[in-house]
């Protein structure tokens, strides 16, 4: 094993001191002189045509400096090139309660709010579409969007890999199940906030965003300015979880208002507005049919999904594919058919939340296999293990698997929890589940041939500054970058100055989503740092009269010199000391349309066991302990990896037990932190975390992702444990006491002992595109070469 000096050490985060002292400056902490405050008028109707907007009274009010509507920002935008369906302000039609219509800049927030109240909007109210079933039927009034179809269908996909019919014919046992995963939201502690200035013809925006680059692109498009006249800076970030990955209306609005008024303009969303901004977990209805041999070996699988997308596209096309892609990177499925559908409904748009489109099918798949094991009288965890993928293989849908710690992760949690030797008593149960997730999406959101991550390093009289567009959203990406640069230059992370997430000063990074930063920016940082080290070593070697290879770098020294002395020698020899590195994922996507969603340079793996008590009288589930093992490839900082794993477990538990974004008569039922239930200190059980290191051949020092995968096994493990405790299947989340009690009542009456959807709707999927599976060993040669 390589000997590292700072990689692998549980060092404090580089921004920890700023965060514990209140010095970190978040977007809402920014208040520039002469700032105007912006409020946004939002639709009170889930679905309506706008007949007129009268802003004249608002414009006359004291303190009001500007009022804008959709006529001022007519250009459409959207995160995916194929779904440019949003406007910063809608002036023709509103599609959910909370859709933005007009915005006011005034000298204070109260004046802006009063002016919003004075804007008169005339609507023609349309029948809202509030469920997947309604969206599949002909609309009563009109369609929500004018693309997609039939009816309110947004996207349909159908793919088939290998001989699915043959696989089912070979099976000894075939089972079908239907599951539902309710939608939920990110609920970041920080409300979205943005401040813009317009000085000398240039726009500057400070925002709470996960991706400065995508905001930059959307601003250039909607404001109709070249990108070089716009600067986007990521402020200290108060939590994203995927919810701040889209460009948002308020970010565009404050820029436009700053351009019109010539003054700084700020907008901070209220907590209620954060629920409307959403882009959270899609509610997904799922049907799965699997054939197995009598020993439990999978012969074929057919998976159908229907996603309730809300009113706009957002990442939805990608989300739809994601509900079908990653089933194959945990279990060896020799033949696989996937049919996916996303519909539009009159709700805030869904998008990417931690695990993006994959926790829902993971929930269904894990429980479905558990049920098959019960059918065959097999031990569920052993039957799953029988089907685990192997390292360095290709899945049937062409996804390339490199390192894979599934076996070790499973062994660790099964052994530590005593899952296989558990004592059986009514009301107590244990459940096991596994998962996998991407270490960054292998293809960019908009097609291009440029790197996904770039890092520059400047060394000047011993001081090291690293520049990267990546946004630290609390996961610690700044600390990872500092650790990598420090490792290569023989310094400590605290010695590295960082400039990140600023489109004027930092080279591109596609931002904090799809768990990509450690892998991609990390590899770029290694390249940049090694180039810098070569310069320092060459200069030191020349002075020492030695070959470069003989010069040791470490502990703040380069050969015979201190780091500062070596930097002076190198600058004298080469001039300004700068270096750059970049990362482009390998081209590994399969040869079919839709193959761009799913490939990742490496997949993380997790396994989880949950121990709980379930009260048959009240239906209340009390989680006693969770064991989680996560294959992170290599932990660049184990403290941060544990934090990501524990946070993922927590969020998965919230989704499993209580979190739900639901609606009544077109209205969000609970757009507040009190009523939208999330786990508190009192709800969180003890968590035992095992870090598994498989040293991925392409990861930085072998590292893979840690922040999303460990969420995924928690909901299915919880439902398996509830079944273990009470003998009822809860086939949808959240697992509320009402559902448990109802399932028990059905069991008592001799009905199927379950709670969950009973049927999957008729979706007009197109004929499946048939794709030939790849040769299993197609990457063996290239893997050996790495």
């Amino acid at each position, binding site marked *: 094993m390589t000997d590292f000096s700072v990689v692998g050490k*549980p060092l*404090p*985060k580089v*921004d*920890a*001191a*700023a*965060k*514990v*002292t*209140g*010095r*970190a*400056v*978040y977007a*809402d*902490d920014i*208040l520039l002189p002469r700032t105007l405050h912006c409020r946004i008028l939002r639709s009170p109707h889930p679905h309506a045509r706008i007949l007129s907007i009268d802003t004249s009274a608002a414009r006359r009010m*004291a*303190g009001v400096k500007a009022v804008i509507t959709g006529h001022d920002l007519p250009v459409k935008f959207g995160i995916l090139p194929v779904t440019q369906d949003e406007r910063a302000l809608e002036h023709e039609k509103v599609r959910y309660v909370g859709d933005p219509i007009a915005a006011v800049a005034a*000298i*204070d927030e*109260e*004046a802006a709010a009063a002016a919003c109240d004075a804007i008169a909007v005339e609507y023609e109210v349309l029948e809202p579409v509030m469920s997947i079933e309604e969206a599949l039927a002909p609309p009563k009034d009109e369609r929500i969007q004018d693309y997609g179809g039939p009816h309110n269908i947004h996207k349909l996909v159908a793919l088939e890999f290998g001989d699915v019919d043959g696989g089912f014919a070979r099976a000894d046992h075939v089972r079908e199940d239907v599951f539902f995963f309710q939608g939920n939201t*990110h*609920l*970041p*502690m*920080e*409300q979205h906030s943005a401040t813009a200035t317009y000085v000398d013809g240039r726009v500057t925006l400070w925002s709470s965003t996960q991706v400065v680059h995508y905001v930059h692109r959307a601003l250039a498009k909607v404001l109709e300015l070249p990108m070089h006249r716009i600067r986007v800076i990521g402020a*200290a*970030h*108060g*939590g*994203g979880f995927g919810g701040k990955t889209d460009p948002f209306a308020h970010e565009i609005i404050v820029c436009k208002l700053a351009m019109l008024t010539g003054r700084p303009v700020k907008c901070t969303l*209220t*907590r209620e507005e954060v629920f409307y901004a959403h882009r959270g977990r899609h509610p997904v209805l799922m049907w799965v049919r699997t054939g197995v041999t009598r020993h439990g070996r999978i012969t074929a699988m057919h998976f159908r999904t229907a996603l309730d997308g809300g009113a706009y596209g957002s990442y939805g096309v990608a989300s739809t594919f994601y509900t079908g892609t990653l089933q194959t990177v945990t279990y060896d499925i020799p033949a696989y058919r996937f049919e996916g559908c996303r519909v539009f409904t009159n709700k805030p748009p869904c998008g990417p939340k931690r695990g993006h489109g994959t926790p829902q099918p993971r929930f269904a798949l894990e429980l479905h296999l558990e049920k098959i094991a019960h059918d065959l009288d097999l031990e569920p965890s052993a039957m799953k293990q029988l089907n685990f993928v192997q390292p360095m293989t290709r899945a049937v849908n062409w996804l390339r698997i490199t390192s894979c710690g599934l076996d070790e992760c499973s062994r660790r949690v099964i052994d530590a929890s005593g899952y296989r030797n558990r004592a059986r008593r009514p009301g107590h149960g244990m459940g096991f589940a596994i998962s996998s997730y991407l270490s960054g999406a292998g293809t960019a959101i908009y097609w291009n041939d440029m790197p996904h991550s770039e890092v520059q390093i400047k060394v000047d009289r011993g001081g090291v500054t690293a520049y990267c567009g990546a946004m630290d959203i*609390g*996961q*610690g990406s700044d600390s990872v970058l500092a650790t990598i640069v420090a490792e290569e230059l023989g310094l400590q992370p605290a010695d590295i100055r960082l400039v990140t997430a600023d489109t004027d000063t930092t080279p591109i990074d596609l931002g904090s989503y799809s768990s990509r930063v450690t892998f991609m920016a990390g590899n770029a940082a290694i390249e940049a740092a090694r180039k810098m080290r070569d310069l320092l070593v060459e200069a030191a070697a020349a002075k020492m009269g030695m070959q470069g290879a003989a010069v040791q770098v470490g502990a703040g020294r380069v050969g015979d010199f201190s780091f500062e002395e070596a930097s002076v020698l190198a600058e004298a020899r080469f001039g300004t000391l700068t270096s750059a590195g970049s990362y482009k994922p390998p081209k590994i996507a399969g040869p079919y349309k839709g193959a761009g969603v799913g490939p990742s340079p490496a997949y993380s793996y997790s396994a989880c066991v949950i121990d709980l008590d379930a009260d048959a009288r009240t239906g209340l589930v009390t989680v006693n302990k969770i064991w989680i093992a996560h294959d992170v490839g290599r932990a660049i900082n184990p*403290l*941060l990896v*544990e*934090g990501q794993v*524990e*946070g*993922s*477990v*927590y*969020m998965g538990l919230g989704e499993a037990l209580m979190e739900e974004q639901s609606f009544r008569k077109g209205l969000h039922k609970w757009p*507040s*932190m*009190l009523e939208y239930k*999330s786990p*508190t*200190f*009192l709800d*969180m059980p*003890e*968590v035992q975390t095992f870090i598994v290191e498989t040293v991925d051949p392409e990861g930085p020092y072998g590292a893979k992702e840690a922040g999303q995968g460990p969420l995924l096994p928690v909901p299915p493990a919880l439902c398996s444990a509830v079944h273990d405790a009470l003998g009822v299947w809860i086939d949808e989340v959240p697992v509320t006491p009402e559902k448990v009690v109802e399932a028990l009542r059905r069991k008592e009456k001799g009905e199927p002992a379950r709670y969950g959807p009973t049927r999957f709707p008729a979706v007009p999927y197109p004929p499946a595109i048939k794709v030939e599976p790849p040769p299993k060993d197609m990457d063996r040669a290239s893997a050996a070469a790495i």
Partner: protein
Amino acid sequence: MLRDVERVVVSLQVNGEPTELLIPVHKTLLEVLREDMRLTGTKHGCELGECGTCTVLVDGLPELSCLLLPVQVDGRSITTIEGMAGGSELHPLQRAFVELGAAQCGYCTPGILLSARALIESNPSPSRDEIREALAGNLCRCTGYVKILDAIELAASRGL
């Protein structure tokens, strides 16, 4: 002035320094701290008393600054996160949070640190369950609370 707003003079002892302010009577302590005094270390997540993010200490006890009017605490002593460290020396709780990675995005951290400080000052060696009970009003979405509990235990074990 835009509107006919009643204003009051309040005297607050903020982080040990006497402060006199003329403020609209309806402005919350949270708003006065952040906007009038520019003490932006105090964060907000809901402004409705639901999340605990805006917690400050009033005479040493945790209070939600979004639900307090300065007139209610006239003459009292307020501690915000800016007043927690002793000069450039971190408070033992802050040090433990740094060492154990208890702050991820860090947005809930000021409120949690102040709640924890009030707990440890009244109960120097709290059990894990006592910490959970005392912190139950502070939400965190990043950490799963695990490292926060560990850090508070570590700080308590070292003494204040």
